[in-house]
């Protein structure tokens, strides 16, 4: 299927966009901060047919430390309120915030709204040993939760920990709690062993909201074949990310990966496990600021030096460019049903199962 890498015609792009908008897109990993969720950016998402987006709450602050004190929980609350405040000022039809059920996303798509899913990465940085805060954020509308973020916390080792120590006693208990509460477990950033143990333990499908294929790019953040197969065994979804350092082995040269690199990961997954377990999780932030990335660079050097210019793949830099992916999958002969599932259907299946 190699001759299809030629640039698509304008007509192809328009057809692809129409198809994409009809399908609806569920973007599994969005790190845009609330202040950057401007009316113009909201409109960009709507134009791309984004039915729902999993926004990471308070990512930067939560990553600053590995304490589990109330201070960082406060940042999460702060972030939730900021999202409500910002979204209340958007033009009609506005957003559905927060998304609580799969039906909320269907309704958002039907009425041209964007569904805002509250998600958390690295909840282990601020969750306490008691389950109180997990239940509280669930009441406040959080629906997707990842525990360890690169480092060790009280629940697990992240993928940046060399000891790869797996889940702790609390970690195992919290996997069950998340099942009971109907929260989707997000295993991106968890260590290899911790993710395998979580997938062994969970009663529900899990997601990797933004992780790629280790066989293609051997980053600690990417998934081994063993992890891919285990995710499929839970009925879960792996959402391919456009984040540069997970698409290219060496990012320090200032090069940027392309759409070809991204599609290679999609192809690999589809060939290994079929089209029903792949999604899109760009890890995109509108108006990223270098200061946020400097914190990241300092704390997580194993992911390479990041800068705002080159952090996303060329050709997949934001929702407006999603159509490039859709057009490429169409031109490579993917079935329309399968593309629709990759854009939204597979995640919707997980959400229906876990959230009810």
């Amino acid at each position: 299927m190699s001759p299809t890498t030629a640039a698509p015609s304008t007509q192809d792009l328009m057809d692809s966009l129409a198809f994409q908008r009809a399908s609806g897109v569920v973007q599994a990993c969005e790190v845009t901060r609330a202040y950057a969720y401007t009316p113009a950016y909201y409109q960009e998402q709507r134009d791309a047919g984004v039915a729902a987006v999993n926004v990471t709450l308070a990512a930067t602050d939560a990553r600053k430390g590995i304490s589990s004190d109330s201070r960082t929980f406060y940042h999460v609350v702060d972030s939730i309120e900021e999202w409500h405040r910002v979204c209340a000022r958007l033009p009609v039809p506005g957003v559905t915030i927060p998304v609580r059920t799969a039906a909320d996303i269907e309704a958002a798509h039907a009425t041209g709204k964007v569904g805002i899913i509250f998600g958390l990465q690295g909840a282990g940085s601020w969750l306490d040993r008691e389950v109180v805060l997990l239940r509280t954020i669930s009441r406040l509308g959080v629906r997707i939760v990842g525990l360890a973020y690169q480092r060790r916390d009280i629940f697990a080792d992240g993928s940046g920990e060399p000891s790869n120590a797996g889940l702790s006693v609390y970690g195992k208990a919290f996997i069950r709690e998340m099942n009971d509460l109907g929260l989707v477990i997000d295993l991106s950033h968890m260590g290899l062993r911790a993710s395998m143990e979580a997938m062994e333990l969970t009663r529900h499908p899990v997601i990797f909201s933004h992780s790629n294929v280790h066989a293609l790019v051997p980053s600690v953040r990417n998934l081994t074949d063993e992890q891919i197969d285990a995710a499929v065994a839970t009925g879960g979804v792996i959402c391919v990310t456009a984040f540069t350092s997970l698409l290219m082995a060496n990012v320090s040269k200032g090069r940027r990966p392309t759409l070809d690199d991204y599609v290679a990961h999609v192809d690999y997954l589809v060939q290994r496990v079929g089209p029903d377990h792949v999604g899109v999780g760009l890890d995109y932030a509108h108006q990223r600021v270098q200061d946020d990335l400097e914190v990241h660079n300092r704390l997580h050097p194993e992911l390479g030096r990041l800068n705002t210019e080159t952090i996303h793949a060329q050709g997949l830099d934001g929702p407006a460019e999603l159509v490039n992916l859709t057009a490429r999958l169409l031109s490579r002969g993917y079935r329309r049903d399968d593309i629709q599932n990759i854009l939204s259907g597979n995640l919707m299946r997980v959400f229906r199962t876990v959230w009810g």
Partner: protein
Amino acid sequence: MGGRDRTSRKIRYWRVIVSTIWRRQEDGMSQERAGTREWTRQAEAVALQRRFGVIQGCEATRPYALTPDFVRQLQNAGFVALNLSLAPHDARKGLSSETKTFMSIVEAIDEWHAAVEKLPGAAILPVRTVDDISLAKRTGRVALIFGLQGAGYWLDRKLLVLRTLHRLGVRVVGIAYMRRDIFAEGTGEKADGSLSSLGERLVKDLNRLGMVIDLSHMGRRASLEVMELSEHPVILSHSNVRALCPSPRNLTDEQIDAVAQTGSVIGLAALSPLVTLESRRPTVGDFIAHLDYIVQRVGPDHVGMGWEYAHARRPEDLVMSNSLYPDILGGKLTVETAHCEDVDGPQDMAKVTERLLDLGYPEDVLAKIFFSNYMRVFSQVWTRAGREQG
């Protein structure tokens, strides 16, 4: 789903009826010696309470004491809603608006949910709208209103977590608690100062969010200012009459008149040091005197119950009040004498009702005092449903 819900509601309904008959028989037997006339009077009182429903404007019961037996007592006495005071203990520990005390409220909310879920038969219904209270009344359940005292102890200057707590179901908010904080003066501050500029903003935010402002524990002058400023009526969930008992916690005639002018409601407290300053345990008669004073002064539209009763109160629950506020509460509260005699638990509501009947209060006035006065304020203020926030 709906069918099962209906069935379980039906079962609950019959359980209430059966337990009531049972209870009546028990009551009847123990009262036999006192004579049938007594029993008839009490039965008449209880029947009125159940017909109108009773809202308890200030409940100090902690989650550990929310036992099936206590809930049955509430149902038998016709209580349909309680305004809880969430996590007062931790919140009162310091004068910070630090996140630590916010955490204690988050924990208290969770603890209440856990206590409610543990009870059989969905007997308790957490409140988000006035309809929930009506529903509780219709189905023989008890509605729990999440109320908070002392915003100055847990609210930040950004007033940010106020919104979060609204999302989590909090519907009544008291501002200053006994002492000075960033918003206002408490009743124990001699300076009797004004609302702060941040306090004015808080009042506007509470109005906008549709949360009921509770002025018990707030200083005299600040409370008058809030009533002037607020777009909505307020409640004083547990305060009595200063002319009858000159505690700093009680209300001057000027405050009582402002309550009437703003359509607000005073919940009458059964906490002993607010009923009498004499060194004796006050009685239901003393309690009724406060209620009657307000009714005589401003009519029957501005009073309700606000006992601050705590079921199964433990001595340690009173340590904080005794040690932190001896100048206001006397420092000698004990589990045995914290409340008026005969206003000490749900079953005593009948004694209050009997006294009111003795005073010649007509039924329509009782309906107001038990239920409608509070409902008037709640329906006016709780305009944001927030039901979608489950």
